[in-house]
């Protein structure tokens, strides 16, 4: 058999057909010339090419890769994939595994931020794996040597591979002569050396190999580190983005209220309830049916409202109060009697003698007019049946004088008619109370349906409202209020510019943190510019907070507050229906009545947010007030109203000291008990001068000079507490502070806060020193109100800040140094790579 091949067809065939057979033949291809040159027989030209993608090609490349991976998967499923495809699928598996980890941990985390960061962590890890070699190996190598050490190429089958993947198989032919020469120039390879291309290629290979090895050695350090640093860097922007998103999502709940409540429809439960009513329409309301109605109607309601509804139901459905006596219930008495007498050993004949005849019981009851009616008391019925049975038993004893059954029968009869337990019906009474006289009438059904529907609508509305209030103000780290808190504390404390030493010292303990914080404030108030800058930041933060809180300000009119208006319309709407149907206990529990309105479910919906908001606001107002008090004391200005000329200098100093201590560290409980302090029981007399200050601090003339080992309080110094309270919260704030906040929307609110603190905390009814109250007045308040007004203590805020800052700085200093070192070594290494002995230039003689 004769075979032909490509070469023979070229040699023997017609030139025209030769052209036809060769798809990519060069136009002026001369086979004879090629054969004479002896260069013809060589591998077919490669269809591979170097991958030269720009940033703009990334989306299309990703798409191509996805399609390739999908096809690879199909091939692998059939068992037909190749090594390259399987390699890519391994990467896909790794990413899927990573996603599975993130997805699982997502379900374990509680807050949106921590949930989000499971995926951010995964993303940054894979990004770091990719970016480290690109940014710190490929780029520096290119800048230093002009060689792309991570060059990719597409082979003849379209498979993307690393050019320097296998150093014993590098497809050099993909680089043109020109390209290699250009790279050679960048590598400073002399122009006229023998085998210049080979030398350049070897140098390129060497640089690439060294860099690949460097990549393997550094990636383990770099990837987790870079990923962690990226996560840290992304935390701020992600939190901001998430806060905005959450806030928008919460606002959308209120603006799309009517569509949102449809997502939590209780139609199914309503239908079930209606089916229950329908199935029992016209039937007596048995205890079981009553329980079913009650449980379905109160299901999902809060305890307070459910309790009220139960009371209403007890009135509307008087089940268990009266019963009908039918022939069936009379008949069943015979059966019950037989069971009761079963303990007495007697024959059926004997039993028949005792048992009244068929209609005997009915007739006896009927004769007494005790059969056809509604009865709630069965004592008369009991007497009739008792006499009937006793008569029969007597007859039996007379007929059988020798029988010993008489006493037993009488005993069993007593047990049947009378219960041995108080409040429990006897067996006979149970028979009488079988058919309640209250019936599920069509009117009652309609009324119950309407009430249930009103509650079901309210439940849907309440879910959406609760969701909103939770997202905005709940005591949880993922709320808008918590976000604002974190943001503001971070900004204010950052502005105070604590040194690393101060942070390190302050993180140890709240007491120490308070001391560091106090010293810092005193140093700031000593410098007017620094103080003004700080107040400016505080003003900005609080203005922002004030703006954000406007949406949850329950003191506003309902027309300006969507949440409030939805709460009112939802609760009032349900209450209207219930009021019309006479469910008055439920109405009271929902919207309150008179003085009880504050404890209604509606009021609680509003109060919850207001309280949370007040707690946060008070904390920051207290901080602002602290700065102002320190400034006034630090400059001995605006304090004369409290530290009057009639006050001894030593007491003034003690007073100023206590004011600072309270501002920085007092809790609401400290107001309730005596403020114990290191005081002198016999202050220096005769000196009524004002306190002296220097560098923001009080220069004490007397305070601290008295030897005192323990804290004391003087019951007879009744003006002392008042003076301290007034020093902190009475009178005007300092002009330096006012100048910075005079145009702020929160100014009047802040002033109101100071007044509130002075009155509520200063005049508290339960203050342990009743004669020491401010201006001798008494103000009633709850402990919660006082707690919310006190807000968070400055030293505790500082302590938390110091701890968090120290921890993150410590982490950064440890791993930042390691990262910097790693980058340094990686970059420096480039200058040691690619070193080769240069060959000697061609001599002219050789030429």
């Amino acid at each position, binding site marked *: 058999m004769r075979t032909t091949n490509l070469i023979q067809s070229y040699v023997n065939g017609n030139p025209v057909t030769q052209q036809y057979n060769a798809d990519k033949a060069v136009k002026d291809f001369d086979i004879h010339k090629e054969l004479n040159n002896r260069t013809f027989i060589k591998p077919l030209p490669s269809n591979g090419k170097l991958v030269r993608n720009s940033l703009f090609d990334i989306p299309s490349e990703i798409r191509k890769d996805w399609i390739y991976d999908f096809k690879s998967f199909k091939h692998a499923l059939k068992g037909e994939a190749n090594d390259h495809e399987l390699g890519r699928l391994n990467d896909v598996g790794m990413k899927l595994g990573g996603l599975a980890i993130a997805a699982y941990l997502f379900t374990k985390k509680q807050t949106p931020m921590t949930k989000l960061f499971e995926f951010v962590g995964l993303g940054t890890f894979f990004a770091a794996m990719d970016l480290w070699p690109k940014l710190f190996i490929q780029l520096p190598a290119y800048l230093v040597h002009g060689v792309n050490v991570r060059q990719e190429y597409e082979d003849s089958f379209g498979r993307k591979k690393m050019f320097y993947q296998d150093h014993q198989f590098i497809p050099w032919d993909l680089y043109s002569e020109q390209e290699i020469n250009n790279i050679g120039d960048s590598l400073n390879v002399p122009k006229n050396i023998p085998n210049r291309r080979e030398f350049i290629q070897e140098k390129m290979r060497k640089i690439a190999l060294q860099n690949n090895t460097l990549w*393997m050695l550094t990636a383990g350090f770099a990837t*987790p580190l870079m990923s962690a640093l990226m996560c840290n860097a992304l935390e701020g922007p992600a939190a901001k983005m998430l806060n905005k998103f959450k806030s928008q999502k919460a606002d959308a709940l209120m603006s799309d209220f009517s569509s949102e409540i449809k997502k939590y429809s209780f139609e199914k439960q309503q239908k079930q309830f209606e089916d229950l009513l329908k199935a029992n329409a016209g039937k007596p309301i048995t205890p079981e049916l009553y329980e079913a109605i009650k449980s379905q109607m109160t299901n999902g309601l809060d305890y307070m409202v459910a309790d009220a509804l139960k009371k209403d139901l007890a009135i509307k459905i008087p089940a268990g109060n009266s019963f009908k006596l039918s022939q069936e219930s009379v008949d069943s008495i015979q059966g019950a009697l037989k069971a009761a007498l079963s303990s007495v050993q007697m024959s059926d004949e004997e039993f028949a003698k005792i048992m009244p005849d068929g209609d005997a019981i009915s007739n006896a009851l009927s004769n007494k007019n005790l059969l056809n009616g509604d009865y709630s008391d069965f004592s008369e019925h009991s007497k009739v049946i008792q006499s009937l049975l006793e008569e029969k038993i007597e007859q039996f004893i007379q007929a059988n004088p020798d029988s010993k059954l008489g006493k037993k029968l009488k005993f069993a009869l007593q047990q049947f008619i009378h219960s041995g337990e108080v409040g429990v019906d006897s067996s006979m009474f149970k028979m009488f109370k079988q058919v309640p006289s209250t019936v599920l009438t069509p009117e009652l059904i309609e009324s119950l349906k309407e009430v249930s529907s009103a509650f079901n609508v309210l439940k849907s509305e309440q879910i959406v409202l609760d969701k909103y209030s939770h997202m905005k103000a709940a005591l949880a780290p993922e709320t808008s209020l918590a976000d604002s808190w974190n943001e503001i504390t971070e900004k204010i404390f950052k502005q105070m510019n604590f040194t690393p030493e101060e942070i390190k010292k302050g993180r140890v303990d709240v007491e120490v943190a308070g001391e560091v914080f106090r010293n810092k404030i005193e140093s700031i108030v000593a410098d007017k510019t620094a103080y003004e800058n700080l107040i400016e930041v505080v003003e900005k933060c609080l203005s922002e907070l004030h703006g954000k809180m406007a949406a949850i300000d329950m003191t506003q009119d309902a027309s300006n507050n969507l949440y409030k208006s939805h709460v009112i319309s939802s609760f009032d709407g349900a209450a209207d229906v219930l009021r019309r149907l006479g469910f008055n206990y439920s109405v009271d529990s929902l919207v309150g009545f008179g003085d009880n309105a504050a404890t209604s479910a509606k009021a609680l919906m509003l109060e919850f947010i207001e309280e949370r908001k007040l707690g946060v606001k008070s904390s920051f107002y207290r901080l602002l007030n602290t700065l102002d008090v320190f400034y006034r004391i630090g400059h001995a200005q605006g304090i004369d109203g409290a530290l009057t000329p009639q006050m001894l200098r030593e007491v003034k100093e003690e007073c100023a000291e206590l004011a600072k201590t309270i501002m920085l560290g007092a809790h609401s409980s400290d107001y309730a008990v005596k403020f114990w302090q290191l005081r002198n029981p016999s202050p220096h007399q005769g000196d009524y001068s004002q306190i002296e200050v220097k560098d923001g601090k009080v220069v004490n003339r007397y305070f601290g000079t008295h030897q005192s080992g323990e804290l004391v309080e003087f019951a007879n110094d009744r003006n002392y507490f008042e003076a301290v309270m007034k020093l902190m919260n009475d009178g005007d704030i300092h002009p330096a502070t006012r100048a910075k906040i005079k145009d702020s929307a929160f100014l009047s609110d802040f002033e109101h806060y100071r007044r509130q603190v002075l009155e509520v905390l200063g005049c508290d009814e339960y203050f342990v020193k009743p004669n020491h109250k401010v201006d001798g007045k008494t103000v009633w308040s709850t402990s919660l109100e006082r707690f919310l007004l006190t807000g968070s203590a400055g030293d505790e805020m500082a302590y938390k800040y110091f*701890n968090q800052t120290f921890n993150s700085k410590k982490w950064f200093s440890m791993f930042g140094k390691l990262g910097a070192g790693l980058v340094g070594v990686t970059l420096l290494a480039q200058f040691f790579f690619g070193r080769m002995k240069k060959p000697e230039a061609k001599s002219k003689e050789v030429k």
Partner: protein
Amino acid sequence: MILPISEFSSKNLTFGDNKKDENNVDYTKDTLLKNNFSTRTRIGLDKFTKAFTVYPARGLKGSINSNFYEFLTMGTVPYVIGSVMLMSIFNSANKHFSAFAQSKASKLGNKMAMGVILYALFKEISKSFTNIPVRLATGIDTELPYAKVNYLLQENPDSTSDLTSIEYHKVGESVDFPRWDQLYGDPKKGEAANFRYDKIAKKNGLGDNLNDSDQEVKPIYKEVLVKSKLAKSFSSFMWAATGVALAFQKPWENYFRVATLKFWNGKEFLHSLRVLGESFVESAKELYKGSPESFSKLERHSGKIMIGSALLITVLGVLNTLHITHKPQKNNADKIMDRNKESVVD
């Protein structure tokens, strides 16, 4: 004379009898090895050591003998360093924190460290979930190792070093080019040429005494290789993820409180091991049942979903591997050609 590291033959850095075959002689040619625990450990240690010593040294020097095998083997380096680094990132700074922050950070850090360990452990162990059933059902060992004798180039004209190195590969490492030659028997040892292929053919129902069992088996072998690799690629990472999920269960905190590696403190160490076992069991239960503190349905069932997915992917992967479609048809030749009919070939 101390040789420069580039000329240091990797053959000098070996474990036990690595460079010798079963008869305790140097490998002079590519040699098939038994796939048992001892061989796997030897190979693992050999590759691990070289990945941290000889191969990086050769790579940094830019040696002409550095090849793709060495590059791939060096892949262990970032895995190991990365794992230690990950543990360190979440734990090293904790000791400087205040007691409360330290206790909170350490709980997370310890779980993260346990996650890293269980990731690696589950990933490796889970490969057996595919390998063993495939080997039992088809007789094909997809992980069969062989020692490859690699001939090196002389680094410089004065080099006096040994010019061979030993690499450890697997017969089925490349599905494009499986090392079929390694599966043939050695007549010098009295082995029939196709004895391994015969076994596989018999196991897969191709019959006994085949004239060319190797040709019949190769397509099956290749199909099993591809499909099992696919199965392992997906299932091993899913099991690794399950390992991480397991590490994040609360009962591990009991172990972290008593954990010690000081084996010389016998009592404490044994107690720590006992708690380790208990914590593992309790954590596995909690992963399946969900934490008692969990309040969302998803959180309660996510562990079941995780384990179920890993299990499902493994079972599907194995079933797909065992579903062999490339079996040669029986009596193939008779169907194609009538042996009684005369034919002339030009």
